């Protein structure tokens, strides 16, 4: 499949497709980050994660409409506000769901999987009833459009760089929260020994609720980023859930670095292959490769050997 291209052409193709894959990468990382926190830290499988992402996308869409109608002068900066709102909305819904549903199901991972699938169906139908079945697109502010010419053949889309930078920031913030803050220590304490953590005075229920909320909130931000690569519909989230689960599992469930590395390799592989073949075959080959690798190395790419 490479035969028809010269070497420099190939270089340019890989670079361009690589940058085109950046937004996909960002969506994967943000989605997977949320999933990994919830799954890695709490052992809960959240099948409704895609719907939390889509909530963020709808919030972004509504914010964009609001600014266009009432505050057109501030439209250039609406995206930041939209992302904060998306985070808050998805996070709040996440905490509500944790309270109503998830907390009854700890230690039954397969059951959380089924229950959150049910939740995802309900959310999808709710979106359809509220926002309509038609997909909606978000209008970007002027400065985010266009791209920057790097060389003759390579140009980088600005919104891609923007989302990329944002993803790096959020990832850093999440690692800070989880690994260096007092709250993060409490989360990890609860993960390692729930009973003991409770005994030393950590409010484990509260920690659970906020952890779940944080994971869902990050999915909301992913939704904001998602509006840049696709239009938003009630079932758009479902398309991403399997991919992001594979990202998490492939990276080794409890490893933040692994999650990022696997999101990168999967998104890049997919967007690069998309240049050479149909999108569906690129997806099939990517998924097949992941499944094959997971069959040989089920613990994922980055997992520690622990004494049990």
């Amino acid at each position, binding site marked *: 499949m490479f035969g028809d291209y010269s070497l420099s052409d190939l270089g340019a193709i890989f670079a361009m497709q690589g940058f085109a894959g950046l937004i996909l990468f960002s969506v994967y990382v943000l989605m997977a980050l949320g999933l990994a926190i919830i799954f890695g830290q709490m052992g809960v499988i959240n099948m409704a994660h895609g719907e939390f992402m889509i909530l963020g996308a709808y919030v972004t869409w509504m914010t964009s409409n609001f600014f266009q109608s009432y505050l057109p002068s501030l439209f250039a900066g609406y995206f930041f506000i939209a992302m904060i709102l998306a985070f808050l909305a998805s996070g709040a819904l996440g905490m509500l769901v944790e309270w109503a549903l998830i907390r009854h199901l700890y230690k039954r991972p*397969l059951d959380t999987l089924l*229950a959150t*699938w049910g939740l995802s*169906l309900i959310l999808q*139908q709710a979106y359809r009833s509220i926002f309509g079945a038609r997909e909606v697109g978000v209008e970007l502010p002027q400065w985010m459009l266009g791209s920057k010419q790097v060389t003759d053949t390579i140009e980088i889309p600005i919104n891609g760089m923007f989302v990329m930078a944002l993803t790096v920031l959020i990832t850093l913030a999440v690692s800070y929260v989880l690994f260096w803050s007092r709250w993060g220590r409490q989360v990890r304490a609860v993960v390692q020994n729930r009973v003991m953590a409770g005994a030393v005075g950590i409010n484990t229920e509260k920690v659970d609720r906020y952890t779940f909320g944080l994971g869902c909130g990050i999915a909301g931000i992913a939704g904001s980023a998602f509006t840049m690569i696709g239009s938003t519909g009630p079932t758009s989230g479902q398309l991403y859930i399997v991919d992001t689960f594979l990202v998490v599992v492939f990276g080794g469930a409890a490893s933040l670095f692994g999650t990022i590395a696997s999101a990168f390799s999967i998104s890049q592989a997919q967007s690069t292959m998309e240049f050479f073949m*149909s999108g569906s075959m690129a997806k*099939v080959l990517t*998924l097949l490769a992941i499944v094959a690798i997971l*069959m040989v190395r089920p613990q994922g790419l980055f997992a520690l050997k622990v004494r049990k």
Partner: protein
Amino acid sequence: MESPRFLSRTDLLGLAVLALLLVVILPLSLDVFRLNLVAKYLTYAFVALGLVLCWGFGGILSLGQGVFFGLGGYCMAMYLKLEASSVENTKIQSTPGIPDFMDWNQITHIPWFWQPFHSLTLTVIAILVVPAVFAFLIGAAMFKRRVGGVYFAIITQAIAAIMTILIIGQQGYTGGINGITDLRTLKGWDIRPDHAKVVLYFVEVAFLFGCILLALFVRHSKLGRILVAMREKEDRVRFSGYSVANFKIFAFCLAAMFAAVGGAMFTLNVGFMSPSFVGIVPSIEMVIYTAVGGRLSIFGAVYGALLVNFAKTSLSESFPQLWLFGLGALFIAVVLIFPNGLAGIWRDYVQPLFAKLLDRRKPGPGHNGGTLGPVADGAPAE
């Protein structure tokens, strides 16, 4: 200690009630159109039955049963399609004698993997063997490496996704998103008219009873008890000298074969097969049939598949919005409120009520005899 019989009294009662419903009541009370719908629902009962063994007893949740359902269905559909694509039937095509969708996709030869489906014998073998081999490969790769639980669920779900994308993407070989349609005859016997639908319904019911008997046999064998033991204490089973992986592979393969038989019956009864019965969404819906019936209940699987599909048809006809809310709520309810599904409700609420009524009518020692047996045989529909 009494040895567990292959068919206990409750099993026989369950079989009799189900036979009464499927063989007598439904065929007598429904018109052909509705009976054909029941036939369609029952094809999912095969899948649900397999999931009882593999998920309920074995604790292995597969979110990819649609793949096996589809494999069985596509095998059947390929045979029927080849028979329907005789040169005479397809003489308006640019290449007569090949399936219509191949012709539309500029394919001029029947590809090699379609060739075996000229023969009905090979087709029947393929319906059983292809899914079993596929399940064996997945199972061997995963279970030998001790992958289970949610990882297995996610991987099987990914396989369902891959399968759908592949079928849709390779439309020249698979019929794409429309699937394989316009099926006509089986060995010259037209499957479309009303009387054929009635015959096919009874054939399907017969196969279903065959699968139920097989499931009951497995459940009451030592293998059934090992599956239960494994779900609880996998390590203990391993350190009692069993290869846990082999037992899981067996349960998974059997579930795959049940699903494939269901898929083949679907193609025959409904008259087509398409990727919309293969992917993530149908696969996880198949799990809900089992959950609603009661994940430990072999008979419950049949009632679960019937009831959920009946609700789906009637609700989505009249209130399409309500159906997804209802289905979503059902997923949550069977996890939170009724983890043992219909069978649990029957055992916990209905049966005590009957017992009370019976006790009132004929007090005496006779009644107690039934409840003293081994615990595993005590519950109905189990």
